[in-house]
């Protein structure tokens, strides 16, 4: 292969793939038992971070950026005037193997524009996976995009070689999607997601009865929504995410703040700052749902359709529900301790362990890792100072804001510049 041509291709096809934010390489269970290359790491490894602070774990590329669709939010849309390129199957295999050998990456993330039709594209993606697994004895991570509209047989075969598969919802609601990509619908996404999910369940059931069942998408499925391109509320976004977590047992939903790439009047104009803070709050909510036992309805509902900008959703929930506080650290159950602002999963677990040995004091809580300045408004422990008056939620919010410095303040969109 010619050196300059391969460089150019990599630049074009990596650039086009970067708006897919999925980066995780966790959940793989493949072991290197054939003395080949690669062994999965259950929690994944981020090998480096780009200058925008996002992790680089996988070689994330498109097979090609030729595409028959014209979705407004996508750089590779048919009508966009960009350079086009396509990798051959062998080029992708060689790049993956050589990057992996040097410990640059955890594996391959392969997506593609749709050229000719869905099946033709899916076949090529499948071929890359098969070459890696069967010819090169590669046991590293593979994240494969399911191409909507591809036939069930192809998708099922791909599931035998990939660790994770994903399809992007793109817009949080059907209406939003119809506005920007009239040729697509959520139904196109739901069908293959459900198909892969059925197969995962089926293989898992077989595994209970039969000893040697091949792996099928061991790291599960994920999806992605673009945030801020269409006018959905945070509630719309998180309710959709919640439904997809529930109905398809997704491992992750990613939220991608829209980076303006088009001059179309239906979208934010070029040069608009991507909604980074909003994205951050959505991820915080996602974490509260998955690891902290919150129901999405507790955080977002008709009375509060959008997340607070100045404080995180956990603190925001606590301030709205002061009737649950203060919580006695030495008595409350784990679930309630987890809901205290300033206490995370690790600290909560340590507290529950440690209090068996005696009542916990403030200095011990601090050493355990509790953010005491935040938590102190919501807890009592062995030596809590006696408090004469109860503060209102709004007052506590003011105390916490007064002593915290937000890294987002300089880009706060509510701040008007007068001159």
């Amino acid at each position: 292969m010619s050196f300059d041509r391969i460089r150019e291709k990599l630049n074009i096809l990596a650039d086009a793939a970067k708006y897919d934010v999925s980066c995780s390489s966790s959940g793989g269970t493949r072991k290197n038992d054939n003395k080949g290359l690669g062994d999965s790491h259950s929690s994944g490894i981020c090998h480096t971070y780009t200058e925008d602070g996002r992790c680089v774990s996988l070689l994330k590329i498109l097979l090609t950026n030729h595409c028959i669709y014209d979705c407004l939010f996508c750089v590779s849309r048919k009508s966009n005037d960009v350079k086009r390129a396509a990798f051959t199957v062998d080029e992708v295999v060689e790049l993956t193997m050589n990057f992996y050998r040097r410990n640059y990456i955890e594996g391959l993330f392969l997506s593609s524009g749709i050229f000719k039709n869905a099946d033709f594209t899916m076949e090529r993606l499948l071929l890359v996976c098969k070459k890696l697994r069967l010819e090169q004895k590669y046991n590293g991570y593979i994240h494969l995009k399911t191409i909507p509209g591809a036939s069930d047989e192809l998708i099922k075969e791909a599931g035998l070689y990939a660790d994770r598969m994903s399809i992007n919802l793109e817009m949080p609601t059907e209406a939003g999607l119809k506005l920007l990509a009239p040729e697509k619908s959520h139904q196109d996404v739901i069908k293959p997601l459900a198909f892969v999910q059925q197969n995962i369940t089926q293989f898992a059931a077989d595994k209970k009865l039969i000893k040697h069942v091949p792996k099928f998408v061991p790291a599960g499925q994920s999806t992605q929504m673009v945030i801020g391109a269409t006018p959905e509320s945070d509630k719309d976004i998180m309710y959709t995410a919640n439904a997809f977590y529930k109905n398809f047992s997704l491992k992750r939903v990613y939220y991608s703040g829209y980076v303006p790439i088009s001059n179309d009047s239906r979208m934010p104009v070029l040069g608009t700052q991507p909604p980074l803070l909003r994205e951050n709050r959505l991820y915080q909510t996602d974490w509260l749902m998955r690891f902290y036992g919150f129901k999405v309805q507790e955080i977002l509902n008709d009375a509060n359709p959008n997340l607070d900008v100045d404080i995180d959703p956990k603190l925001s929930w606590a301030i709205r529900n002061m009737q649950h506080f203060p919580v006695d650290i030495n008595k409350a159950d784990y679930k309630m301790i987890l809901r205290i602002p300033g206490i995370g999963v690790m600290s909560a677990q340590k507290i529950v362990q440690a209090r068996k040995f005696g009542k916990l004091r403030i200095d011990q809580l601090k050493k355990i890792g509790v953010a005491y300045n935040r938590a102190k408004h919501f807890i009592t422990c062995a030596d809590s100072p006696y408090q004469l008056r109860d503060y209102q939620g709004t007052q506590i919010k003011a105390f916490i804001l007064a002593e915290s410095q937000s890294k987002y303040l300089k880009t706060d969109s509510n701040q008007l510049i007068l001159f």
Partner: protein
Amino acid sequence: MTYIFDGSLPGLLTAVFEWFERKPGTVSLKSIETFQPEAFSESFTVVTNSDKADRVWKGLQGKLKKDWLRKFYCAYLSEIPEAFDHLFQFTIYVFQSEKGAENNYGNAHVIALAKYAKSVEREKHRMEAFIRFQHTADGIFYTGVDPDFNVLPLISNHFKNRYADQQWIIYDLKRKYGLHYNLFTVEEITIDFAVGVNNKNPEAILLNEKEELYSVLWKDYFKSANIVARKNTKLHIRHVPKRYWKYLTEKQLS
């Protein structure tokens, strides 16, 4: 009273044995390297004895589950002078308490051990992430590192399982020893480097002809994956602290 030991793990465990034999009350443990004689305090030099060390280690195995044995070992690998004393006190505390005492996060030694172990595990994980092999002219994938803590024993298996079909060397330039995988086993090695290779300049000298191609492609990829509109240097540096940049192919000027 101060106990002085030779800095080895068996030495540390022997010190615990000696303490239980003598029960001298409160004792602090120091390694011979950091020990400074004090005017009003006695000291006792522990002579490392592998039989005594084995007995203490067996005792610990009976008291602690696997995860805590690992934390114990990690805290030892931190090589931090205060960590030795915490390990010593922790062991005595565990032996003198009922089973399960290691979960008392209110205890200063428990929390200290957990903290040291966390730092060491973080450094181990960073090595697994930030090591960049260079394909040398003789076919070996080589890297030189200088980790904050002595983590080579912890990463050996990870690299052995992962790169089972290629020879590799990971060399700790600070502690002057390395690991060599010869396609069958991992062995400890020492190398006399030619002038110019040290922990400020860890790169290999004679490279495979394809090495340049892939390092350039990787640098290109690193640039392409960045979204300029989202630039966040502070976050970038928090994830990839500057002291690791010298290992990273993508951070070298081309």
